[in-house]
């Protein structure tokens, strides 16, 4: 039976019905919840940022606690570009993306070597160094005051960014959507499969004749570029770039969100971002001071019980292994 293997290999690349439905729902959100456009914009950006982390953490197994470095570089680049060169949002987005990619490519040799702990520390270190640089060179970045009042031109020369963030939310969703479509192709390609293989067993990846370092560097650069795009969107749609873009909590939050949504299936980033933001919104309206307590508790339970079990209540009282 020829073609059976090809069909099986192609199966993961097929779009599922619920995926279409979910995207339709996501696109409907800014139309239905007009008053929440700013939140939707924020979630879309966060989703893109988490998606980029999934590429390295979920697909390739590179742990990073400094992903905010790329978010920040993209954000500052877009803000500075709008202030000093030209206010077109798409060109600014491209500049932020490319600069973050360059930083990713330059720092990728550091994540190729060492263990997970090394990578955790190195990525965190890079982000901290950038944070302090942004703080120190205040003539360029505005230091602790940040760069306020970044004025953006109209999107595609037509849509002016409004105070209600309606245009912003569609803009960010569109970028998230395009990134998702591209990654959906990439992760199901031979290259994408080789990344999963890398996560499982580097030694064997070498033994089937593939370069491990090339792949690590490539995917780290791609993830950096997407994180940079998210940062650029953030600076553009909020009209400012501050040190907060580079803060450690940003790297930590994005990992939390991704873990909430699940790693290594692309939807983890967007779903995690939605879950994290909605949870934070709900919890902080109900207990403004202690919402992190509940998020923390939820995470502990999630990790200890396991996602599979937690979201399948009907399996709770069955013996494991049956």
């Amino acid at each position: 039976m020829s073609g059976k293997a090809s069909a099986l290999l192609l199966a993961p690349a097929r779009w599922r019905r619920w995926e279409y439905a979910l995207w339709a729902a996501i696109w409907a959100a800014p139309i239905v919840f007009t008053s929440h456009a700013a939140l939707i914009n924020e979630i879309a950006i966060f989703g893109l940022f988490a998606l980029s982390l999934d590429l390295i953490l979920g697909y390739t197994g590179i742990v990073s606690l400094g992903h905010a470095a790329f978010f920040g570089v993209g954000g500052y680049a877009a803000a500075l570009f709008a202030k000093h060169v030209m206010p077109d949002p798409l060109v600014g987005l491209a500049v932020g993306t490319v600069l973050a990619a360059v930083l990713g490519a330059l720092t990728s040799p550091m994540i190729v070597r060492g263990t997970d702990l090394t990578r955790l520390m190195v990525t965190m270190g890079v982000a901290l160094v950038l944070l302090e640089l942004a703080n120190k060179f205040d003539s360029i970045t505005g230091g602790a005051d940040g760069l306020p009042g970044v004025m953006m031109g109209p999107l595609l020369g037509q849509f002016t960014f409004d105070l209600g963030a309606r245009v912003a939310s569609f803009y960010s969703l569109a970028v998230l959507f395009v990134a998702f479509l591209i990654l959906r192709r990439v992760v199901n390609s031979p290259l994408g499969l080789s990344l999963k293989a890398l996560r499982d067993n580097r030694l064997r990846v070498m033994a089937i004749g593939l370069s491990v370092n090339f792949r690590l560097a490539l995917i780290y650069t791609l993830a950096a570029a997407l994180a940079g795009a998210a940062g650029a969107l953030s600076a553009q749609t909020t009209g400012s770039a501050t040190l907060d873009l580079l803060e450690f909590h940003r790297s930590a939050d994005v990992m939390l969100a991704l873990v909430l949504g699940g790693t290594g299936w692309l939807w983890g980033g967007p779903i995690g971002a939605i879950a994290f933001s909605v949870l934070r919104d709900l919890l902080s309206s109900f207990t403004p001071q202690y919402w992190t307590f509940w998020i923390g508790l939820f995470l502990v339970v999630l990790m200890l019980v396991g996602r599979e079990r937690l979201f399948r209540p009907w399996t709770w009282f069955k013996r494991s292994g049956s």
Partner: protein
Amino acid sequence: MSEVVLETFGLVKRFGGITATNNVSMKVTKGARHALIGPNGAGKTTLINQLTGVLPPSEGRVQLRGRDITSLTPYKRVGLGLVRTFQINQLFASLTPLQSLALAVSSRLDAARRWWQPMGSDSVIGAECEQLLAQFRLSEHADRVTRELPYGKRRLLEIALAVAQKPSVLLLDEPAAGVPAAERRDILDTVAALPDDVSVVLIEHDMDLVFSFAKRMTVLVNGTVLTEGTPQEIAADPQVRAVYLGETKVNHG
């Protein structure tokens, strides 16, 4: 004597004060069925690691089909046809055997860098995977996640992944190690059915397997080649007997 495919010249590997392999020179001819035997700690694995490029030798050279490959990285040697299996399975636990093989075949066909075409859209790769799955008796398990396969099947996949590279030299590191008796036959059959033009180097403790398979043998003791010859010569060699019967007084060559 037929063409030499793989040759080492005085390979030495020192770890601090310990010499793991000492001046090992050996030749593997085209289509060879060559066994590398020796007691534990004889330096077999260190030798394999130098052949495949995992460890750089302290001294000496490795040559593949007349080309010096001593300084090549492991994955580039694989591209040249020097492929190994591992004593302890090194598999992609979360992929299926089909996906793992598809990746191995893509690598050989230089298609593993394709990033836009979905895996499976190339029917050449699919067809070759089917053939490999059948050859290694994995067809029924093609779409199961590797970590859930029975041990014997994982062992077969270990060998299939190497064979998918169409190697000119295949290094088998204890292929039957740990496989339950019931599944052993599959391994032995597939190893015996390897194409004639592939040079196979077998590292094995199981003497039944070694003597049924090998046409040439090298005996490694304390990092040094003790002797080399046909299975009959080796079996009759008093030095080898002494080593395997546990006597320690052996004249090193």
